[in-house]
């Protein structure tokens, strides 16, 4: 994706920018109830999967969503695709409020939003041929025409041999299968493709092939991507902007250059420092901040800032291993603009250039 254009929100080819974003999400909340009891079920709690999440995705842009497992990335994606119904909050897609849309109201919009899934082994029906899999969207949406030719065009477009139309998924390698998944997502010429860990199951040399394919298709069709991955390197490579999630909340969002070079939230800084850097940075001795403990349970999230129980900066400020400033413990920080489109939800964000320090006792 030609970055310069995309960063300003102007897609290289395709739909004119209307000024309003393609996806607008505001105060999105999703709770999954936890029930007990056999006949008289009563709710004894809730998994707070997504809590007060707001973001925009401009047309032609790639928004990366990163975070650890269980932080609500996939739930957010499923809400945007309206595979789940939000508990509260607003989702505007292409000018339509779809937050509470019924399935019949959603139907025409389903063509516009498609997904590419993580596991190319599980997301393709093993008993259907490639042709049947890729033409399924045409059948579902009653699209007229020569399905076989249309499918073969798609196959050629994603770098597959169109003669393999009648083959079955097990005859293909992981990378080829993921191409089938991409072709299927592309079939209806959607505006938004949600990629949920599209390369995580693939070997590195194949990952690069799929990443390049997704970038080419974006340029060709003016696609908008919501790109979810736990691989921070891949997200940085494909995304114009990146949002970092922790325990159901977005803690930082910004252009990928700014966010990676100048993380302002202590969690972002710790997450980036935890990525194995490979050789180059290893030699230069970048300090790795090892967070202690695990991510708290989303059933019972900590009060105040969700990150405060593990935050090295809060401990540095209080000067004690066990204490954190009262503000961090009691009040939830909201996303605050930090300039240049970067927003951070932290009471004590890192200053530009400030390095996250491990607490003194470590």
């Amino acid at each position, binding site marked *: 994706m030609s970055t310069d254009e995309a960063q300003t929100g102007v897609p290289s080819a395709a739909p004119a920018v209307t000024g309003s974003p393609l996806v607008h999400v505001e105060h999105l909340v999703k709770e999954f109830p936890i029930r007990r009891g056999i006949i008289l079920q009563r709710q004894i709690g809730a998994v707070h999967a997504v809590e007060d999440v707001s973001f925009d995705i401009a047309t032609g842009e790639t928004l990366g969503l990163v975070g650890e497992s269980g932080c609500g990335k996939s739930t957010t994606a499923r809400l945007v695709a309206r595979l789940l119904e939000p508990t509260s909050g607003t989702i505007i897609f292409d000018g339509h409020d779809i937050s509470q849309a019924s399935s019949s109201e959603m139907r025409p919009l389903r063509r516009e939003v498609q997904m590419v899934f993580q596991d190319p082994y599980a997301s393709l029906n093993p008993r259907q041929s490639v042709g049947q899999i890729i033409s399924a969207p045409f059948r579902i949406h009653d699209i007229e025409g020569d399905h076989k030719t249309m499918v073969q065009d798609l196959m050629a477009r994603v770098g597959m041999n169109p003669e393999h139309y009648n083959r079955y998924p097990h005859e293909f390698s992981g990378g080829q299968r993921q191409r089938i998944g991409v072709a299927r997502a592309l079939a209806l010429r959607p505006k938004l493709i949600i990629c949920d860990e599209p390369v995580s199951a693939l070997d590195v040399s194949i990952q*690069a092939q799929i990443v390049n394919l997704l970038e080419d298709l974006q340029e060709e069709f003016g696609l908008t991507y919501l790109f979810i991955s736990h691989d921070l*390197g891949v997200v940085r490579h494909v995304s114009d902007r990146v949002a970092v999630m922790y325990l159901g909340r977005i803690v930082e969002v910004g252009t990928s250059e700014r966010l990676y*070079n100048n993380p302002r939230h202590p969690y972002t800084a710790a997450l980036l420092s935890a990525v*194995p850097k490979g050789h180059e940075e290893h030699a230069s001795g970048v300090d790795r901040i090892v967070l202690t403990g*695990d991510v708290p349970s989303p059933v019972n999230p900590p009060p105040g800032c969700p990150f405060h129980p593990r935050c090295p900066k809060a401990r540095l400020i209080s000067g004690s291993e066990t204490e954190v400033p009262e503000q961090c413990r009691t009040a939830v920080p909201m996303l605050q603009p930090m300039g240049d489109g970067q927003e951070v939800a932290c009471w004590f964000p890192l200053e530009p250039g400030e390095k996250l320090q491990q607490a003194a006792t470590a």
Partner: protein
Amino acid sequence: MSDALLEVRDLSVRFDTPDGVVKAVDGLSFTVGRGESLGVVGESGSGKSVTFMAIMGLLNRAYTDIEGEVLFKGDDLLTLPQSDLRAIRGEGIGMVFQDPMTSLHPLYRVGAQIVEAIRAHREVPKTEAWKEAVEILRLVGIPSPEERVRSYPHELSGGMRQRVMIAMGLVLKPDLLIADEPTTALDVTVQAQILDLIEALKQELNIGVVLISHSLGVIADVCQRVMVMYAGRAVELGSRDEVFLNPVHPYTWGLLESIPQGGAQSHRLIPIEGSPPSLITPPAGCRFHPRCPHRFEPCDVERPALADRGSGHLDACLMTSEAKAAAWAGRQARRNAVPA
């Protein structure tokens, strides 16, 4: 190397399957010394895991044809009787398996599983063994191990379970720890904790460590020596600095180029064309030659041996070191020159 703990010579592993003979590992040789960490990197199907399953005697010999020598402190593990091998597993060589979600028995407390490992090797009273289990859990950094030892696996997070797996691998104080993708199922922040832990334990206990991973980043972070595998063979073997700074095999080049580089967002990734070969009918000559952009005349017939060709570390490629230096310089120039 005189202080070699493990010395593997010309190891070959073949599986008999209905579709034909799978040549999973083909003529592999390497050593691991005490206090040394060897990283083994390669894509799925490159033979990384099978190599170490064969070394540990975990493959069913009825369907598997294993050749070569695996010397552990002078004993050939491939010819040792089962009873001796049992003693070496755990006490001599500890193993940490990939998936902490499936490698622990869900119906037993984690403490009981560690105790079982202890009592299979040493005659110690149960109470003593439980105390040892608590201590080893403390060593791997599990908070309040007195309580955690009574937990069932489902009560622990992925990172904690992986720590339990490492604890089980270490509880008998082995001389060599083999960790097969120990962090693949974990989040990056937890991965960092586990890698630091393995490094700290290696230094504290002065053991040899083999870290198997498909992630070059993980390998570069913690390993002193690196072996790159492709389609059942080692294609490059050397110190970390040599392999990552002066790689000499075209496959290693391709792997390094496939990874997104920080700060170079607008660069296109350069994938390796094609996909790994079938191990039932592997290509003749160099197994990488069908995907290699630098292949020349004898590559499809002549098998390159793993040898030092003047670069300071071992590689299996027929190009001369001058040709390689030129090719790598060219590739780096091309990579850095890609316009935004």
